[in-house]
């Protein structure tokens, strides 16, 4: 059952990004997926905590502040299972490149920072498909925090770890909680084989580095196994014979 350890043998490719809030990982993944798409590859996108099946329950739990660390962890795993079973797995089998913004490692870092048992969470996610590439956006805590505080109006309750009662001050709680998450990421980076990107670099430099890694690690198998739209000479519509 340890799928996260066993390499996946699907024709598709799974590329995921991880990092604390404010690390810039979503921006980078979005740029990468557009680049892959413009190269003609079939690209799909899956975001953390986005299953329509689980959405209402998550919203309910957050709004009424009903979560314990255990139920928070379990419901996010349910969301992840739904996306895996209905979306990621079939698309991987069909030969698409699936880009996931956060993956099981988010739970490994965040749930453990919430006090959930490390081994238990890892077992919980053992049904997850192992990514072909996992990028980790390494960011000093203060850099990430200044990006978050500068860009959004308010920190959210669970995002700031307010449920843990670390501090009654939202910003202070956020700082401590994100610091714990950062420690967990750093501790697992090597074990999980993360491709580490220095997220203090310019957006352009990070993207250049990502693309280089994708080509180096996946280049040959991208061409041989991933679904690709036929490249048409200009003036011809999709679906018409070349």
């Amino acid at each position, binding site marked *: 059952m340890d799928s996260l350890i066993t390499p996946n043998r699907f024709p598709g490719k799974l590329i995921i990004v991880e990092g604390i809030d404010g690390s810039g990982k979503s921006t980078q993944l979005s740029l990468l997926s557009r680049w892959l798409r413009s190269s003609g590859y079939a690209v799909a996108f899956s975001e953390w905590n986005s299953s329509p099946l689980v959405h209402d329950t998550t919203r309910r739990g957050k709004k009424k502040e009903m979560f314990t660390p255990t139920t928070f962890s379990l*419901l996010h795993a349910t969301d992840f299972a739904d996306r895996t079973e209905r979306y990621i797995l079939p698309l991987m089998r069909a030969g698409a490149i699936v880009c996931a913004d956060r993956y099981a490692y988010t739970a490994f870092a965040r749930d453990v920072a919430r006090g959930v048992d490390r081994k238990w969470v890892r077992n919980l996610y053992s049904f997850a498909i192992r990514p072909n590439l996992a990028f980790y956006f390494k960011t000093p805590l203060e850099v990430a925090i200044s990006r978050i505080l500068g860009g959004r109006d308010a920190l959210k309750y669970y995002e700031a770890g307010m449920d843990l009662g670390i501090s009654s001050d939202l910003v202070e709680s956020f700082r401590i909680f994100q610091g714990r998450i950062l420690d967990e990421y750093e501790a697992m980076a090597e074990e999980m084989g993360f491709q580490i990107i220095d997220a203090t670099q310019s957006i352009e430099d990070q993207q250049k580095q990502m693309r280089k890694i994708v080509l180096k690690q996946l280049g040959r198998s991208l061409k041989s196994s991933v679904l690709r739209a036929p490249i048409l000479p200009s003036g011809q519509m999709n679906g018409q014979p070349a």
Partner: protein
Amino acid sequence: MASRHKKSPAGPAKPLTPYSLPLPNVDPAALTGKLIVIEGADAVGRSTQVIQLRQWLEQEGHAVLDTGMARSALAGKGIARAKDGNTLGPVTMTLFYVTDFADRLENEIIPALRAGFIVLTDRYTFSIMARAIARGEDAEWIERVCGFGLVPHAIFYLKARVKQLVSRVVIGRGAFDYWESGMDCHFGHDMYESFVKYQTQLIRALDHMSKRYGFTEIDATRTPECIFQDLQKRIAALNLQKVPARGPKVSA
């Protein structure tokens, strides 16, 4: 591993312990109530027994909480909606039910046990595990996921054969249920065939757990009255009166 937790129902009152993983913020020594589980396949007559047992226990002066699957404040509605759409994958369904169980355990069952209640639960982690195993999921995986469950004082396993379940469904309800027939996994060509195959798998999984987790097997092929008397006798043997009623006073 789990056979270590095997206990005789009439044994001395030991503090409740988790199967493999302690929950954060729970002191087992403070849980003075009793946890009684009624397990069994679909349509075996569990809910009827829970209703009667509750009435009887309350008449005896015990405070009772009864609970059952998909009744949590957090996930109950979400599960019902997901089942309506018939779109639940097996791992998703399993984890949704574990979420529901965890919410009830932490927010209903444990507070009630702390207050000295008798908690009667219609199904427990065992049904969740049996359903997962019947759908081909890894037994060790789901057992570890459910490891935060408390070891109950007694687990009564209402046991019947598939043939008897079929007749109860047909006579009692008049139709097969999509999920009870395991139609999400298409065990058979039609609901009857699928029901028989799926419930056979479920019973096999529960039978296997019976030894592992020390279930008390109850012959559920008898009349409901007979089963009730049997359960009464066994529950009385749990020394319920010796439960010290600590914690907040019970108003209803």
